[in-house]
């Protein structure tokens, strides 16, 4: 199981800015190890964000998103106390979901 995400959601002017820091290796599949063998790709493929259980954002990512990915986006109409849940899935079908409250 992967490490938890760090999520910060702040309400401002009727919207909420959400910042997420995920813990993931994001191996590209281009690098080689010391013995010259290619290290297989291992990266997040799908990201979903939900506000109070309703999907507001879906994203597809390739291996060229940086290690321990950062994502910032703005949810319209979110206010303090709302629940933001972020989920990711990687190409090993590993998933993780973390939740934060808009402050």
């Amino acid at each position, binding site marked *: 199981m992967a490490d938890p995400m760090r999520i910060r959601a702040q309400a401002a002017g009727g919207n909420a800015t959400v910042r997420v820091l995920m813990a993931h290796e994001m191996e590209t599949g281009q690098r080689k190890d010391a013995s010259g063998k290619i290290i297989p790709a291992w990266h997040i493929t*799908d990201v979903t964000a939900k506000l109070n259980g309703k999907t507001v954002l879906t*994203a*597809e990512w390739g*291996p*060229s998103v940086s290690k321990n990915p950062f*994502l910032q986006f703005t949810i319209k109409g979110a206010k303090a106390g709302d629940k933001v849940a972020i989920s990711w899935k990687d190409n090993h079908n590993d998933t993780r979901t973390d939740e934060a409250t808009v402050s």
Partner: protein
Amino acid sequence: MQTRRDILKRSATVAGLLAATGLFPQYALAAWNKAAFDAKTVPDAVKAYGAAAPTESKDVTITAPDIAENGAVVPMTIATSLPNVKQLLLLVEKNPNSLTAKFDVTDSVEPNFVTRAKMGQSSDVYAVAITADGKSHFAKKEVKVTLGGCGG
């Protein structure tokens, strides 16, 4: 005469077209658009999402540093002020596979995303906005990657 490069290029285009029409059965079910992420060029990746070739637009913006000292972590902001945008793509032209990320824009989120991407070498980076009518608009910016981490 056909060179290997020509053939590869053509097969990527065909793959893009097939994906666009949903003729790739093994990918049609999977949420992740493999054809788009396998595409080697910016237009091919956009085509894989079923959009027309992108035209440059001032309503799409991409913000990235002029010089990135560390190509492994390059912060990028993509945004658009166009109406009816369905998808926003972030691409790095000279990476082995151009497409970095695709965001589905809904009514509930601002079409404005910040993330960090890896860059193998100095390249143009693209933000592409695909609208509901299948048109696509892009903005690009050149980012120089300093190798070796010596800052020069």
